[in-house]
């Protein structure tokens, strides 16, 4: 079984990697997409005054 790693995926916003497993005949036997990033916005805005939240969560994505 051959393995092709695409790390990182590029030309988009965000982090990701793709692992492709090829059988002996060269066809794809399985393919996995993984997201190796997490920042935890859902947790760390807990307890913030509501009017401050937009200025924080706008940093989830700058694009």
């Amino acid at each position, binding site marked *: 079984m051959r393995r092709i790693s695409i790390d990182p995926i590029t030309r988009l916003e965000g982090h990701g990697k793709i692992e492709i497993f090829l059988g002996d005949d060269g066809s794809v036997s399985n393919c996995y997409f993984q997201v190796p990033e997490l920042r935890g916005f859902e947790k760390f805005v807990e307890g913030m*005054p509501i009017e401050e939240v937009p200025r924080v969560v706008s940093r989830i994505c700058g694009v």
Partner: protein
Amino acid sequence: MAKLKLASYWAAACGGCDVAILDTHEKILDIAAAADIVFWPIATDFKYADVEAMPDGHIDVTLFHGAVRNSENEHLAHLLRAKSKVLVAFGTCAHLGGIPGLANLFDRKAIFKCVYHDTQSTVNPDGVEPQTKTQMPEGELTLPEFYDTVMPLDHLVEVDYYVPGCPPTPKQIWAVVQAIVSGQLPPKGSVVGASEKTQCDECKLKKNEKKITSFKRIATAQPEHETCYLEQGFLCLGPVTRGGCDTRCQLSGVPCRGCYGPPPGVLDQGAKAVSAIASVIEAKDEAEIGRILAEIPDALRSLNRFGIPASLLRRKTL
């Protein structure tokens, strides 16, 4: 003149710093004329393996943005330090920890519990959490280790220059690029692309005398946009924030939240904010002081929104 080899990498980032570079608009062509981009995930297809294969010092300048959140970010911090002649902590996250640094009030366990189990939109009946190693029938899959504590870049490697801002303004980015290209940079370890004074120095709002008798929130009160926000009782971190962004927030109708980081000589932006803001409260009686300060909810996250990882204590003790 040989073209500069330029790299730009994002750790725990949002992409805003990359977009700010693109927001230099037509100047991006000048940047492309002066530099060969050798690694820039948002815009080019170079892989980590390509960077690993480079000789040490191969890259002339790397702009590293995003905070260090996990082992992959750490690996790239060390890797890019080795492969770069000049390493720049670009943007507030790399400089101070930034917004992702707010996670330092929690730890991995609390964050994973919320994200993978408790949030209302999560459907995870088997309680699966990301693992650093997962054995699948075809082979082993890996993910980076998520650390308990977010770090700014200089907690791990020697940083040559800091460009503050969330994100840095395109005007300042262009100034920094020009300084790099012309070789006219200040001593290593300096903050570049920003003023040596505070926000108040460039702020055009009318300043009178600060005598705060109560604090207001923009959720429940309407600020006047011609007068200093702090004077009106709206929390503004202008006095403890480095200038250089042309007071873009204040001009947009909201008080400063400190993204350009502490002014020169200040070790802890949050501590200085306490000092500066408490100094201008008008009260001499403990009960009155208590009443006024009760109007500041969420002290740490309001007084040090962007720099908790770079603060003296770095994180909440749990």
